[in-house]
């Protein structure tokens, strides 16, 4: 590890923290329906959209109606995206002449983008037409992100409102999020990316003659616009197969920094929206501090492991850290940081191959996802994810101070505990059960590139990534098989909707409760004690769940490496 490396990491953290308040304040106003500086331009469009949709910003929904709206919208999104892929051969904007996507791959991809996972069993430049990329994938990048944020806001309303029935209007929340938050930011980001050298064209792939005189086809396309939302909406689906390691998707250190910042920006700002909505910004900061603690710890381990390199390689007289699978223009520090950021938030874009990380270096991205993507997390998803852990932490801690547990004045009772446990339970269910089946299924094992614990990690990582709706790939696993297309698709659906429904049920239950004023008998949830408690609960619950699997994967691989054994 170098001082320079740590300085870059600190600069990155500093920028993210500085953005929290202004972005949080802006989003708070947006979701409250207050006037913002964009209202004169966007207000008429917004009202027009409501008129077309036959809804109104004054119309509020019960949690069941809110959830029904999400399900309806997600099913429709899935169908559109599936049909677009199947018909791309006969639709326009297909200069490379792509043919219809295979049904099970189309299913996997449609689920993947609707669930904000962006797991890619395809290479973008060799599979998808411009139309699918733009009207299908990029549109879902916006909408699935907006859905996530809408759910988080609805859940926050559950805490903020008292003795109410409704938790907001899904259509309004989603429209506002897309129109006021995602679109304006993406337009600005796209222009910046174009300036930094990313392609943004509808023209065909470029044919070039290399220095040796060989012919090379260089894939281009509307890259900058997709990268802008791919990061901001923590989608992570790359325009190119190489994702953010591709020079057109991530030209230099500055674009790398901007991409990492935008991955965290909205998720981190949501903690501030939460603080503002419940009337105490310190509550939001406490949650961000929890996320930050886990994040810094992850970065430290990952950077340490990657900078330390492989002792077996050192023994051959080659010094230095592990540069395998990394881009020299980013280096070890920024590759390790990117890996932790993209898996902490459920982005899934990669600028280095996680498969080539050291065992411990690859262990961090995996555990980040197994934590349920609660370290900042996917936009919205990370926030409602951590609230599930907060419910559990507060419940146990509340009992320990001799009161019926309460958080922000809302009593945490059987219903909340049940829903939170359901949400927490569904991730290991999807991750572990599918891994357990895949590792003994010969056809599934055939997809892995390495044997032993590393191969095990490849499969575990895939299901972990899918269930956590992350979408990053460990690499090494050939995922485009019917088995993986379908099971990973199911895993993504479980990871998305089996968390969303309990989260909204909690919102519905909380919103109806009275708010108990805080007293000396209620323990403060905005201080270091709470942060420590929450970190402890998250680590213990997740650690206990995944310890056996991790022991047989990255842990044994690491220990074996020390003993001179590799796989």
């Amino acid at each position, binding site marked *: 590890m170098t001082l320079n490396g740590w300085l870059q990491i600190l600069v990155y953290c500093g920028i993210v923290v500085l953005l929290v308040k202004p972005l949080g304040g802006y989003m708070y106003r947006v979701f409250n329906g207050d006037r913002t500086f964009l209202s004169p331009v966007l207000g008429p469009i917004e009202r027009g959209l409501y008129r077309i949709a036959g809804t109104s910003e004054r119309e509020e929904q019960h949690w069941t109606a809110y959830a029904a709206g999400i399900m309806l919208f997600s099913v429709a999104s899935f169908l559109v995206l599936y049909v677009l892929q199947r018909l791309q051969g006969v639709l326009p904007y297909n200069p490379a002449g792509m043919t219809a996507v295979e049904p099970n791959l189309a299913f996997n991809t449609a689920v993947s983008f609707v669930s904000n996972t962006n797991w890619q069993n395809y290479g973008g430049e060799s599979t998808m037409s411009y139309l699918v990329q733009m009207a299908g994938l990029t549109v879902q990048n916006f909408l699935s992100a907006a859905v996530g944020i809408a759910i988080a806001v609805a859940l926050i309303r559950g805490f903020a409102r008292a003795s109410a029935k409704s938790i907001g209007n899904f259509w309004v929340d989603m429209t506002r999020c897309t129109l006021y938050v995602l679109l304006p930011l993406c337009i600005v980001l796209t222009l910046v990316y174009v300036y930094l050298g990313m392609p943004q064209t509808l023209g065909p792939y470029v044919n070039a003659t290399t220095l040796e005189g060989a012919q090379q086809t260089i894939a281009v396309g509307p890259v900058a616009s997709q990268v802008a939302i791919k990061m901001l909406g923590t989608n992570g689906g790359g325009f190119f197969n190489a994702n953010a390691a591709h020079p057109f998707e991530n030209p230099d250190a500055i674009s790398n920094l901007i991409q990492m910042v935008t991955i965290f920006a909205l998720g981190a700002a949501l903690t501030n929206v939460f603080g503002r909505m419940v009337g105490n910004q310190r509550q939001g900061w406490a949650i961000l501090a929890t996320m930050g603690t886990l994040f810094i710890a992850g970065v430290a381990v990952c950077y340490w492991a990657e900078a330390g390199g492989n002792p077996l390689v050192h023994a051959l007289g080659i010094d230095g850290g592990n540069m395998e699978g990394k881009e020299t223009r980013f280096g070890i520090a920024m590759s390790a940081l990117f890996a932790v950021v993209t898996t902490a938030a459920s982005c899934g874009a990669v600028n280095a191959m996680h498969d080539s990380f050291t065992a411990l270096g690859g262990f961090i991205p995996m555990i980040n996802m197994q934590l349920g993507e609660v370290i900042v997390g996917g936009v919205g998803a990370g926030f409602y994810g951590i609230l599930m852990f907060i419910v559990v932490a507060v419940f*146990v801690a509340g009992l*320990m101070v001799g009161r019926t547990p309460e958080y922000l004045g809302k009593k945490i009772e059987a219903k909340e*505990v049940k829903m939170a446990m359901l949400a927490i339970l569904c991730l290991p269910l999807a991750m572990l059960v599918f891994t357990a089946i895949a590792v003994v299924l010969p056809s599934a094992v055939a997809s892995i590139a390495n044997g032993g614990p590393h191969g095990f990690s490849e499969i575990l990582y895939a299901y972990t990534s899918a269930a956590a709706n992350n979408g990053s790939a460990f690499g090494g696993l050939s995922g485009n098989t019917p088995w993986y297309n379908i099971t990973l698709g199911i895993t993504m659906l479980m990871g998305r909707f089996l968390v969303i429904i309990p989260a909204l049920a909690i919102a519905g239950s909380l919103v109806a409760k009275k708010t108990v004023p805080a007293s000396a008998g209620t323990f403060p949830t905005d201080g270091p004690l709470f942060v420590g408690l929450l970190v402890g609960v998250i680590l213990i619950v997740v650690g206990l769940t995944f310890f056996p699997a991790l022991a047989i994967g990255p842990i044994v691989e690491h220990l074996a490496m020390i003993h001179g054994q590799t796989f």
Partner: protein
Amino acid sequence: MSHSKSASIMDASILLPAIGGAFKKLNPRTLIRNPVMFVVAVVSALTTVLFVRDLITGGGDFSFTLQIIIWLWFTVLFANFAEAVAEGRGKAQADSLRKARTETQAKLLTGEDRTKYKLVPGTSLKVGDAVLVEAGDIIPSDGEVIEGVASVNEAAITGESAPVIRESGGDRSAVTGGTQVLSDWIRVRITAASGHTFLDRMISLVEGAERQKTPNEIALNILLVGMTLIFVLATATIPSFASYSGGYISVTVLVALFVTLIPTTIGALLSAIGIAGMDRLVRFNVLAMSGRAVEAAGDVDTLLLDKTGTITLGNRQATEFRPVKGVTEQELADAAQLASLADETPEGRSIVVLAKEKYAIRARDMATLHATFVPFTAQTRMSGVDIDGSSVRKGAVDSVLAHVSQSTVAAHATRPGSDTVRDLQAIADEIAKSGGTPLAVERDGRLLGVVHLKDIVKGGIRERFAELRKMGIRTVMITGDNPMTAAAIAAEAGVDDFLAQATPEDKLKLIRDEQAKGKLVAMCGDGTNDAPALAQADVGVAMNTGTVAAREAGNMVDLDSDPTKLIEIVEIGKALLMTRGSLTTFSIANDVAKYFAIIPAMFAVFYVAPGQTTGPLQALNIMHLATPQSAILSAIIFNALIIIALIPLSLKGVKYRAIGAGALLSRNLLVYGLGGIIVPFVGIKAIDMIVTALGLA
């Protein structure tokens, strides 16, 4: 505490039957009420069946498997034992209560004439029947005195042998079946049918027979079931992972890992904690009608306390003599004492006492003074004495002033509007403002001064309220006094707020207002007019001396009729919740050590490098446990024994300390969280050494 059968936790008379109880509770229908232990029993049965199969077919590590199976069953038995011990403590009490419920003959009255009755069995009485109970009779069932007054021995339910008075009308009209009339007679209207009496309810409560899970217990159970399901996933997937890695894990080992991981410690002790919580209240002579009420007590935000009897001693006392100008204190004290000699009210007696203590004026005999006592009447609102044409009066200031202005006896009588009158009124106002009651004294038409009667705030109550404030509980004093007096007493006692000139409607409104703000309210009361408020309050403690209506309305009954107990009730409620939370934390924290014992043992021979005997995961064996078998055995033994070790704590409860929620949480996190991580490392290592030394594995 009068129920001082403070049976120590490990009393042989309770422990021995509990061992039998532990086996009886193996009945699946009983077990299923506790999901975590039910799961343990199921997997124990499964391993037992597999073991028997292996015995028949041959093969397998018999000694090791058998030991694991034995400890698995011990885990279930220990949990049952904990519950049986908790119940046993209540049973002892129930038995003594049952003795009081023995068959009684009731004198069922047939008409108005109380000599005409027929003897019927007590159990045949119906609600509304009128019975006669005479000296020596046992009261056959709960009822209300409709005629007469009697002294009653209620030792059967309160443990207090001093007799109490029960009379018709007023707030002391309730009688309890099973208690005995010592003198006189009463006519009682029966209010509870056989099997539904107070005593019956008490018996079933202390036995825990009707115990229903409380809301928090249900929520905690859901959490425990959730954790159990997580560990089902974590362990059930291991065989497949192992098979991928080219290894094999036996069912016994998997079951051992599973049972040590699921929260058996708290699962085993959960119902014992609940029963013990109720039991602690019973030992404290408070009967909670439901576990829900005990839990609610821990959550109380606002405490309504009656001033009289709770915050202040029941009666006002004379604390000082304030003469008007031209009169000495001695003179005033002498007159006041004379006026009070025959006054048997507590206020009157306190004047005599003060005169003696402060001015050495000795008690005089009324007869030798030829004095006649003039008692207090509602019309005159004064009392005093007449001695040989001279008269002394004391009473409410305006009454005495009116009396003096009409006086024609002597020339030195005080004239209305004189300086003396103004002086007296100034003194009286000053006393009233300080929360006291002024009592004017005159002799033969001459105003002498004022006696300061004061509400005496109970010693130590201020500190109690400070403690409550630290718990986050707001105290509100309820009083019939005027706001000025109330404010002064409230300030002296240190309550947070007061409700002056309170009517029952005001009380009810106050409770509703607090509840509308999301707060939980506790109060105590005894009168019939308290009943609506008692019913409305989240925790309503009715005094046992109170009326039937009050006792029906409250969700707790204090057998000692001591209103200050509310504070302890709150602490007991909090201790109950804390015990659950702390042991849950401890139980889950224990898992870390168990993983470090079992995972290296399980995967010991996975990925063994050429030339080595153990695999790389042996590095996780940080406790250096002897062999894989001893490691697994030690973990499961520790898991079972910790249940036994924690029974005393779960029965006694984790003590509540009013040190603020944050400090309390860090303390408990340190003790039960960090302690829960460290203790099993030490324990498992120690057991491993013993197991190895004994050659068990």
